[in-house]
C-alpha cells in the first residue's frame, strides 16, 4: 500500500515557523508511489475465487478471472521509488510460501523510504502473492553464486515436468511460449510473459515449476496449457509452454461496472457427475445470478470516450481472446491510474460468450475514514487535536462512500499540512478486511509539541567610528519567542516574540509581538472559514517621506515607530482570496537619527546647514500621534502557477477609515486599489517539464486619502515596489498617487527574462500633504522608468533606467515585484 508522508520534524525546539514552512513544501513535493503498487492490495480476493478453467469448458457464464495482473515492472517501480510501501493485514495467506522471502524483500525495499515502517506484507503472501513478488524473488535467486544442479540427463530430450527430480535445482536458460493454434512461438514482449515469474537464467526446483504451471492453468487465459522441459548439453534446461488461448465469441457491446463492496461471485463447484439437464440448469442459474449481479452493481467512473475506444477494440478483433481482454484490462486500468484512482482494479470479465463483455472493476470505495494520532515513537495515542479540525480539511472525495483517489489523498495531505499542527502526516489507503473491495483511508498524524520556546542569537557588527566595524561595537542580538499552539485542540494559538539587536541595551530597538489566533469563529463544523486574530506589535521603519530627490545628498532620516494593538477577522474564501476587517489602535512616534522624538523633518539649507523647520512628521505636531482606525482589506486572487510561471488576476482593495479618535481627532479615509493582471500570451500544454508561456503583466495602483493625512501615512513614489529604478520615496510623497506598470516575461530555459516600463504620478497632490515634503526635498512628484532583467532563482537582476535623469543602474532584488 502506499502512503504519503510529510517528512518528520526535528526536535520541537527547532520546529520554528521556518522549518514548518520547509516541511510544507517538502510534503507537496514528496513523491507518491507509482500507483501501480497500490493495485496489489485488492487482488488477493481473486485467488480465492474459483478460476474459470476449472470448468471443463469456459463457455458462457463462468466469469473469466484475470489473476495475474501485476507486471513485474510495477513492483520494481514501487520498490525503487522508496516510498512507504505497506501492506497491512494481507487478506490471504497460506499455500506455498516459497517466495515469501522475495515478497518481503519487495515490500521492505519500498518501506525504507517512507520511514513509517513499511510492513513486508508480502511476507505472509501465499499463493497469490508469490506470483506478484516472485520477480523480485527471482531477482534474488538470480545470484551468480547460487548453486544449481545439472539435470543429469542426456541432452536434447524432452522431459515431462513430473519426470523431473524433486531434489534438484534446475537452471532455466530459455523460456518459450508455443501457441498451439498457430503453431508458432510467442515473442518475449507478449503479455503472456508477464504471467510467468520464471525468467531465463533463473534456478528453480520442480515444485516451483509445478506451481508455475498450476497458476498458468488456473489463470483463465488458457484453455489448455502445459510445461515441457528440454535438456541442454550444459546441464541447464529449456522450458517450452505450449498453450491454447481461451477465446470466446465476438462481442459488440461493452459495459463497465463497479463491483466494489459486492461479494465476489463464487462459482459453485460443479459435480462432474451432473447430467446434461442438471448442467444446463446449473449454467442457467449462474447466468441469472450474474445478471442480478450486474443489476446490483453501480455504474463506474469510466468515461464514455474510453468505453467507445474499447468497443472499437472489440470490433476490430472479432473474436474475444484472452489477450484482447488483457488489453482491455490494461486500457481500463490505465485510465483509472491516469486519473488518480490508484486503488481501482479490473477484477473480472464476465458475461463472455454473449454479445456483451462486462468488465468488473473494483474502484476502491472508501468504507471508512480513520484518524489516528501517533506519539514520537509511532505508537497510537490519544491526540490533542479535535477531529473536526482535521475532517474539515478533507476533500469531499476522501469521505466515506467515495472512490479513493490519490489526488484527493495528496490534497488532504497538503490541507492538513497547512494547519501546521503536525510533524508527520500519512494518508494511507488500506483494504477493508470486513468489506471486500473497500478501502479504509487511514490518516496517521504526529502532533507537534504544543508549547515551544526558542531563543536565537546573532551577533551583528555595526559600523563604528569612520564606518569601520570595531570590536567594541559588536552587539549581541537575537530573538526570544514562545508559542502555545493548538489550544483546546482547535488550532488556537498564542505566540510571542521579542527581538533586539542588542541585548545589553534593549531599549534601543526592542521589537515585540504578541499574537492570539482563533480560527473557526463560526464553529468548527461551519464551512465558513473565519479567523479572529489579535495582536500587540511594534515596528520601526525608516520613513520614505523624508527622502531627498535626485541631487539632494542627505536628508536627515526620520524613523517611524508604531506600537499598538490590532484585532481583526479574516474570512478566507479560497486559498488566496480573503477579506480582512478589524480595528487598529496605535501610537506613532517619529524620531530622528539619534532616537529623539522629532516633530518636524529637517531640511538641508543651501548653505549646508540643517534647519529643523521641515514638514511636520505627525498630525498632532508633537512627534507623537495616537489614533484608532478601522482597517479592511479585500484580496481577490485567482493566480495560479502554470508550468512554474504565474498567470491570473489579483485585485486588492485596502481601506483605512479613521474614526476621529486620537490626537487631533484624525478623521480620514485612506484607500488603495491594486489591480494586477498576468496575461498568458500563448496557450501551452500543462505538465511538468513543459515550458511556461510568455506572460504580460499589467499593474495599476491607486492610492488616495481624504481627510487628515499625517506624513507617515502619505503615499510615496519610487522604490522596488513602486517605480523601479528609483530609491524608496525618491519621486515624492503625496496624498493621491497613481502607478502603472507593464512587464513582459519571456521564458528562457527554466527561468525568465523580462522587460518593463513603469510610471508613478502624484496627480499634483504633493502639495496637499502638510509641509509639502515632496517640494521641500526637491522631488519631482512623478517619474518613469524602464529596463530589463532576468530572474535568477529568487534574485532578480535588472537594469533600470531612471527616466527623470536618464541614467541607468543595475539592481539586485529579492522576490517578485508584483
Amino acid at each position, binding site marked *: 500500500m502506499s502512503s504519503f508522508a510529510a517528512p518528520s520534524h526535528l526536535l520541537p525546539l527547532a520546529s520554528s515557523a521556518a522549518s514548518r514552512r520547509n516541511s510544507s513544501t517538502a510534503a507537496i513535493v514528496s513523491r507518491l508511489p507509482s500507483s501501480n503498487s497500490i493495485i496489489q492490495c485488492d487482488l488477493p480476493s481473486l485467488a480465492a475465487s474459483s478460476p474459470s478453467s476449472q470448468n471443463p469448458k469456459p463457455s458462457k457464464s463462468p466469469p473469466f478471472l484475470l489473476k495475474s495482473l501485476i507486471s513485474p515492472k510495477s513492483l520494481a517501480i514501487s520498490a525503487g521509488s522508496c516510498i512507504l510501501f505497506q501492506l497491512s493485514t494481507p487478506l490471504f495467506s497460506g499455500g506455498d510460501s516459497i517466495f515469501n522471502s522475495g515478497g518481503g524483500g519487495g515490500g521492505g525495499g519500498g518501506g525504507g523510504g517512507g520511514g513509517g515502517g513499511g510492513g513486508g506484507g508480502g511476507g505472509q503472501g501465499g499463493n497469490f502473492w508469490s506470483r506478484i513478488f516472485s520477480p523480485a524473488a527471482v531477482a534474488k535467486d538470480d545470484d551468480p553464486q547460487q548453486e544449481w544442479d545439472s539435470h543429469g540427463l542426456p541432452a536434447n530430450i524432452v522431459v515431462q515436468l513430473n519426470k523431473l527430480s524433486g531434489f534438484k535445482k534446475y537452471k532455466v536458460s530459455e523460456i518459450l511460449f508455443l501457441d498451439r493454434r498457430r503453431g508458432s512461438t510467442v515473442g518475449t514482449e507478449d503479455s503472456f510473459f508477464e504471467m510467468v515469474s520464471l525468467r531465463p537464467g533463473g534456478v528453480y526446483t520442480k515444485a516451483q515449476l509445478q506451481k508455475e504451471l498450476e497458476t498458468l492453468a488456473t489463470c483463465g487465459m488458457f484453455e489448455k496449457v502445459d510445461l515441457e522441459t528440454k535438456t541442454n548439453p550444459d546441464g541447464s534446461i529449456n522450458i517450452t509452454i505450449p498453450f491454447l488461448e481461451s477465446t470466446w465469441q465476438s462481442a459488440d457491446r461493452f459495459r463497465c461496472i463497479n463491483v466494489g463492496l459486492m461479494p465476489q461471485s463464487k462459482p459453485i463447484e460443479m459435480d462432474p457427475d451432473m447430467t446434461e439437464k442438471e448442467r444446463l440448469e446449473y449454467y442457467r442459474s449462474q447466468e441469472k445470478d450474474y445478471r442480478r449481479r450486474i443489476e446490483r452493481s453501480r455504474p463506474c467512473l469510466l468515461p464514455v470516450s474510453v468505453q467507445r475506444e474499447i468497443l472499437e477494440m472489440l470490433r476490430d478483433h472479432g473474436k474475444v481472446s484472452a489477450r484482447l481482454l488483457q488489453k482491455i484490462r490494461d486500457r481500463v486500468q490505465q485510465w483509472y491510474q491516469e486519473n*488518480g484512482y490508484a486503488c481501482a482494479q479490473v477484477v473480472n470479465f464476465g458475461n463472455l460468450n454473449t454479445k456483451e463483455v462486462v468488465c468488473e472493476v473494483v474502484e476502491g470505495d472508501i468504507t471508512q475514514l480513520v484518524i489516528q494520532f501517533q506519539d514520537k515513537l509511532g505508537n497510537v495515542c490519544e491526540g490533542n487535536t479535535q477531529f473536526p479540525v482535521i475532517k474539515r480539511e478533507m476533500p469531499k472525495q476522501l469521505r466515506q462512500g467515495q472512490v479513493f483517489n490519490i489526488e*484527493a489523498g495528496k490534497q488532504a495531505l497538503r490541507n492538513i499540512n497547512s494547519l501546521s499542527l503536525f510533524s508527520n502526516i500519512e494518508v494511507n489507503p488500506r483494504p477493508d478486511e470486513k468489506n471486500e473491495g473497500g478501502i479504509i483511508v487511514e490518516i496517521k498524524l504526529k502532533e507537534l509539541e504544543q508549547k515551544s520556546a526558542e531563543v536565537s542569537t546573532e551577533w551583528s557588527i555595526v559600523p563604528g567610528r569612520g564606518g569601520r566595524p570595531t570590536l567594541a561595537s559588536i552587539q549581541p542580538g537575537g530573538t526570544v519567542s514562545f508559542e502555545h499552539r493548538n489550544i483546546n485542540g482547535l488550532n488556537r494559538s498564542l505566540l510571542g516574540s521579542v527581538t533586539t539587536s542588542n541585548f545589553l541595551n534593549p531599549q534601543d530597538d526592542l521589537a515585540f509581538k504578541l499574537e492570539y489566533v482563533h480560527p473557526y469563529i463560526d464553529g468548527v463544523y461551519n464551512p465558513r472559514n473565519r479567523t479572529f486574530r489579535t495582536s500587540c506589535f511594534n515596528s520601526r521603519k525608516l520613513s520614505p517621506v523624508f527622502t531627498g530627490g535626485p541631487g539632494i545628498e542627505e536628508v536627515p532620516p526620520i524613523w517611524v515607530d508604531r506600537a499598538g494593538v490590532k484585532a481583526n477577522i479574516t474570512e478566507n474564501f479560497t486559498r488566496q*482570496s480573503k477579506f480582512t476587517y478589524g480595528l487598529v489602535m496605535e501610537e506613532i512616534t517619529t524620531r530622528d537619527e539619534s532616537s529623539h522624538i522629532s516633530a518636524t523633518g529637517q531640511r538641508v539649507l543651501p548653505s549646508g546647514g540643517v534647519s529643523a523647520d521641515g514638514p511636520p512628521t505627525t498630525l498632532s505636531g508633537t512627534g507623537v500621534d495616537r489614533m484608532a482606525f478601522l482597517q479592511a482589506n*479585500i484580496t481577490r486572487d485567482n493566480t495560479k502557477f502554470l508550468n512554474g510561471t504565474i498567470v491570473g488576476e489579483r485585485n486588492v482593495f485596502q481601506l483605512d477609515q479613521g474614526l476621529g479618535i486620537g490626537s487631533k481627532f484624525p*478623521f480620514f479615509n485612506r484607500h488603495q486599489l491594486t489591480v494586477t493582471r498576468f496575461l498568458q500570451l500563448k496557450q501551452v500544454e500543462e505538465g511538468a517539464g513543459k515550458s511556461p508561456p510568455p506572460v504580460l503583466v499589467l499593474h495599476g495602483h491607486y492610492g488616495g486619502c*481624504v481627510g*487628515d*493625512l499625517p506624513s507617515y501615512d502619505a503615499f510615496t513614489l519610487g522604490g522596488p515596489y513602486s517605480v523601479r529604478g528609483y530609491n524608496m520615496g525618491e519621486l515624492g510623497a503625496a496624498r493621491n498617487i497613481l502607478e502603472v506598470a507593464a512587464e513582459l516575461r519571456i521564458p528562457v530555459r527554466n527561468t525568465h527574462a523580462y522587460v518593463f516600463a513603469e510610471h508613478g504620478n502624484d496627480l499634483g497632490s504633493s502639495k496637499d500633504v502638510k509641509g509639502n515634503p515632496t517640494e521641500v526635498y526637491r522631488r519631482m512628484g512623478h517619474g518613469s522608468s524602464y529596463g530589463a532583467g532576468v530572474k535568477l532563482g529568487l534574485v532578480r537582476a535588472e537594469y533600470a533606467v531612471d527616466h527623470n535623469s536618464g541614467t541607468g543602474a543595475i539592481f539586485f532584488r529579492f522576490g517578485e515585484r508584483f
Partner: protein
Amino acid sequence: MAGQLIKEWTAIQQFPAATQEKLVDLLGKLKNQNVNTLTILVMGKGGVGKSSTVNSIVGERVVTVSAFQSETPRPVMVSRSRSGFTLNVIDTPGLVEGGYVNDQVLETIKRFLLNKTIDVLLYVDRLDAYRVDNLDKQVVKAIADSFGKEIWHKAMVVLTHAQLSPPDALSYEEFFSKRSESLLKCVRQGARISKKDVKILPTGTPWIPNLVHIITDVTLNGKSGILVDKKLIEGPNANDRGKLFIPLILAFQYFFVIKPIQKWIKYDVARESKPSWD
C-alpha cells in the same frame, strides 16, 4: 504688535509745511473712513531701495541703509502714531539673491507677517533698470503665491532711483512711461490679474504727499486689507478638504468596491476548474 512700543510720529514735523498739511489732511481722510491703522508692506528685489523708501516715508532713519550690501537680514516693522492714527511700515529683505527668488526669505517674511493685516503693498523697483526680465515675473509670482493674488489689488509699484538721465535721447517722460508700462505688464502677468489696480507714482514733486495720497487711495479702494493668517501662508488645509464627504466615500467604497470584489471572488470560486476527481 501689542507688545511693541509705538512711538509718536514726530518726524512728520520735519517735512515741509505743505507736505505736513497734506499728510495730516490725508490721515484725517483715512480717519474719517474709520481707518485707524495703516500697514504698509514694502517688498522688492535686493538693493532697489526698499529701506530708503521706508525711511523717507517715516521721515527718520529708522532702518540702516548701505549702498553696497544688504542691510536688512530680516523684516522690520516701524510703527508711528499721530493723533490716534497708527502707521506701520514693514521693511523686508530683498527677495532675490543670487539670481533666484529666495524661498527662505519669503518664508521668514511670511512668518513675520503672521496675524497682521496688510493694507498696502509697496512693490519697489528701480526706474533706472532698463529691462524687465523673467526674474521680475518670478518675484511677482512668488509674492502672489505666498499671499494670494488679492494682495496685488492693494499694491502699488514704487520706482526708485529716478534721478537718471534717460538713454538714447528718450525724454524722461517717455522713458518713465515705457518703463512703468513694462513693469506693470509684468506685474499683471505675474500676478495674473487683469485689472489695472496697480498704481504708478506719477512724475513730479513733491513725491511724499503724493505717495501718501495714493496710499490712501489704495487703502480706500474698497478692497479689504490682506490678513496674513496661517491659512494664507500654508495654503488651504488639504486635511480638511472633503472631510464631510468621508461617510459618503465610505459607503461608496463598501457598495461599489468591496461588494463587487466579493461577488467576483464568488464567481471565481464557482468557476474554478475542479480537478477531474472532484
